[in-house]
């Protein structure tokens, strides 16, 4: 393996008795040095970055291609074009093979071949076993270079998408995700907007062909290869596949645009006749581009303590473990290099205890902004982040994936070298300072999907009601028609 483990472990004089408490156990040091990125990074003659992590433990190979493009490039009246292009790329056959023949060949080779178009990232993956690497790569790159976008498969795909749309109001979590995106970034922004039937009807095969020609190009690619390969040989092969790409092209506009909506804080509700309210509350945080900023480590520790580390964190402990109000409760702090990230607390609780759980979450947000975290909490968070760090580099696929991820968002590989030192340097003052700076109680948007007549009054013991929260006001959001997304009568 490639990673630099220096494991001087075990068999050293382990005591023969059992200590009364686990803290009395002594462990040998586990040294870990971040693998040298230069050993993995390569560049093809045409400039495409390729990260190769060879590992011949098993006869398995993975190739992942990420592209800097996405739905932000599609016309406003054809929302969903980027996604459809990705799925049809895979299911629509190639110039040589009709869709059924392509599927048959891929499955006969037992090769996992996939493609997708996302909001700010498209991608294609190949997973195969060594004996069929050549045939699998041929097929994979034939798909990427010469897709057919078969008309009949497009019809099937559209009908399937339509069926998926019909389910938009079935799962409370789906309603929650859609309305949350809209509350934070509006219905028009590229990563929060949703495809309607009209959008879909406006998309024709020719649109997919053009989208592919313009954006599914080597200029936008970062490639990773991991597994049973010889790096020199695989680079030669990749060069053959990725040079002389058909057509002319330039890198896609990058990065994607930024949202303009100012979210309106307060409580929002969508009605659904279910016994449990599903809740998200929080706000956006600024786009993260300065990866040397030590506030990031302090923020991660802050979130670890607040609600990001399961039972060890405050929100989970109070809402789930102390009060038994939810199965799943916690917070997350997402950093995003391409647009605003978000700070959120999520949980699901029976309708009449939604208010109580919300009150607890808000109290904890306030507490971490006003009181310094305990030394023990900070020590646990630091130890956890530092000790689990080597695990991110454990496999060849992970190492290649991490460095390719850096290349994709334009972060220096050196970020990883100093990361643990940044965590070690964080103090209780730092945690308090970043909590005050980044958590904004006044900006909190609260959204619940559930049965309002049970949610509003709160619990039978009168411990909390929605009247006590968000100024006692709530905006009831209407359910949308699943195909048009227009307000239902």
């Amino acid at each position: 393996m490639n990673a630099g483990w220096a494991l001087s472990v075990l068999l050293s004089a382990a005591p023969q008795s059992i200590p009364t408490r686990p803290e009395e156990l002594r462990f040998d040091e586990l040294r870990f040095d971040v693998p040298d990125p230069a050993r993995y990074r390569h560049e093809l003659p045409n400039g495409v970055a390729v990260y190769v992590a060879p590992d011949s433990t098993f006869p398995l190979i993975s190739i992942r291609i990420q592209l800097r493009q996405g739905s932000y490039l599609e016309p406003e009246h054809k929302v969903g074009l980027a996604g459809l292009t990705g799925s049809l790329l895979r299911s629509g056959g190639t110039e040589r093979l009709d869709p059924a023949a392509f599927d048959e060949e891929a499955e006969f080779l037992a090769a996992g071949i996939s493609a997708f178009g996302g909001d700010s990232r498209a991608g294609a993956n190949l997973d195969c076993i060594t004996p069929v690497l050549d045939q699998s790569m041929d097929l994979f790159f034939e798909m990427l270079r010469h897709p057919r976008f078969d008309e009949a498969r497009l019809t099937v795909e559209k009908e399937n998408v339509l069926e998926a749309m019909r389910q938009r109001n079935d799962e409370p979590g789906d309603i929650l995700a859609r309305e949350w995106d809209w509350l934070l970034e509006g219905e028009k922004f590229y990563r929060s907007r949703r495809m309607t039937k009209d959008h879909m009807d406006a998309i024709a095969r020719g649109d997919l062909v053009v989208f592919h020609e313009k954006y599914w190009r080597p200029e936008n690619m970062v490639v990773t290869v991991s597994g049973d390969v010889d790096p020199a040989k695989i680079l030669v092969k990749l060069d053959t596949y990725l040079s002389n790409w058909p057509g002319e092209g330039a890198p896609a506009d990058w990065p994607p645009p930024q949202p303009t909506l100012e979210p309106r804080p307060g409580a929002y509700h969508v009605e659904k006749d279910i016994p449990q309210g599903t809740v998200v509350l929080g706000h956006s945080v600024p786009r993260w581009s300065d990866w040397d900023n030590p506030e990031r480590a302090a923020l991660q520790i802050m979130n670890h303590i607040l609600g990001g580390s399961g039972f060890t964190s405050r929100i989970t402990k109070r809402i789930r473990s102390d009060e038994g109000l939810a199965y799943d409760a916690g917070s997350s702090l997402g950093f995003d290099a391409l647009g605003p990230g978000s700070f959120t607390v999520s949980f699901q609780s029976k309708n009449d205890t939604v208010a109580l759980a919300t009150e607890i979450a808000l109290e904890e947000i306030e507490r971490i902004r006003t009181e310094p975290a305990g030394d023990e909490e900070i020590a646990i968070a630091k130890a956890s982040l530092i000790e689990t760090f080597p695990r991110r580099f454990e496999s060849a696929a992970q190492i290649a994936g991490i460095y390719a991820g850096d290349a994709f968002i334009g972060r220096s590989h050196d970020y990883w070298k100093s990361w643990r030192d940044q965590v070690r340097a964080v103090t209780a003052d730092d945690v308090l300072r970043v909590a005050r700076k980044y958590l904004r109680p006044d900006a909190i948007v609260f959204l619940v999907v559930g049965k309002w007549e049970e949610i509003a009054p709160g619990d039978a013991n009168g411990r909390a009601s929605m009247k006590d929260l968000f100024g006692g006001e709530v905006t009831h959001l209407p359910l949308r028609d699943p195909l048009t997304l227009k307000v239902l009568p």
Partner: protein
Amino acid sequence: MKRAGFGILSLLICAITDGSEVAKVPVETFELSNGMKFLAVVRPELATVSAGWVARVGSANERPGITGMSHFFEHMMFKGSRTLGTRNIERDLQIVEEQERLQDQMRAVYREQRERYRLGEIGDPFADDARPPELVELQRRFDALTEEQRELMVKDEYDRIYTAAGASGLNAFTSEDVTVYFLTVPANKLELWFWMESDRLLSPVFREFYSERDVVHEERRLRTESTPTGEFDEVFDAMFWQSHPYSWPVVGWPSDLRSYSLAQAREYFETYYAPGNLTAALVGNFDLEEARALAERYFGRLPAKEPAPDVVTLEMDPRAEKRMVAECDCQPQVELRYHSVPFRHRDSYALEVLAGLLNGRSGRLYKSLVLERGLAADVAASQDSRKYAGAFSLYAEARGGASPEDLERALLEEVRRIVDEPIPERELQKVKNQITASAYRQLSGGFHLLLQLLLYDGLGDWEYLNHWAETTLAVTDSDVKRAAERYLDPEERTVGLYYREREGVKP
């Protein structure tokens, strides 16, 4: 791990490897004198050890009145021990007992409540607003003790110690047959795992028993009551399994969740968490001899006990077709389910191949129902091999105007074709190529391998991991046809038909 020698054959000959070498995992095994079994896979290239253990107990071992107990246990095992979780173990244990006496009195009141419910005097006997004053008073006294206990508690100490030590993925799951506990620790901290796991098996304290019940209730609301088909899935299972305890849900019936006692839980623990009913597994970077010594030192402390009772109720032979008609906020869909065979049954391999022929983009169901006939948006087939019995399922979700009955007919036709028509050699080879590839894929990733070892040993024998591919590759077309004919008898099917709730997406 030593690489298998591959003979790379031309695709024209069909097989993607020469089949002489199917991937195998070198597993070391040993057993302690108390009957606890260990499986070990040393992977020096890793920086971690993934470790876990399985208790051979699940909802199938329950009975009416204590349904959901196995899953509830999975939660209770994180509540600490005599050493972990409290600053004052004497008082803590007293509180647990005092609370239990109050709960006994509350259960007596609920017995009367059920009587009133049977007489039609009240609705839900557990509803907050149906509580008589004495119950409110008992609850108040109970809550006061909880407050006192909390002052002494070191909350979730078990989780905190692991977290501070750099453990990750600490979790557990419960099925009808097994309960599995697992995590990943840094390679230098394997002894911590031995300490922590043997401690919670040696002296567990089921504190917070009754508040955790509320958490489980929320879990039930989340997974079953607030999902489009969750409650119908329960109806369908209860209808499919006639005599076997697989008929009740793993999470348990709500009224049972409200009724168990600590005494019942302790009895369950004594019976099913005895060392002879457990298998532990380690996958990662460790020294085998050291692990063996640690296993002896830590888990050797668990006293041996009588073997756990077997599940004796056999599923009755199906006698009639059964149909469920459901309306929900869901796509029109259908499931056809047949009684088949359990884990490692000789016919289970042919049924896996049958599922392989039906599944996938180039598989029969997708080709026919999705592409050619345009009836379905999604299709699937699966063989569910449980410990005591099994089921084979066909599933389709409608597209356009297709009704669940249309889908049912189309699925039945595909079963008929398997039985009546020859299976092309290349089609069978395709499924076998996928089996060869997945036999390798299952080996990569220490954590995934750990879960498979524990699951397979919990169901019967971990060696299935090294046998299934070989055995499945030997399946012939006539084996598949025979299995389809024998188990997918149209007159013995159970059918679930789901319709979208009639108009009015409710405001």
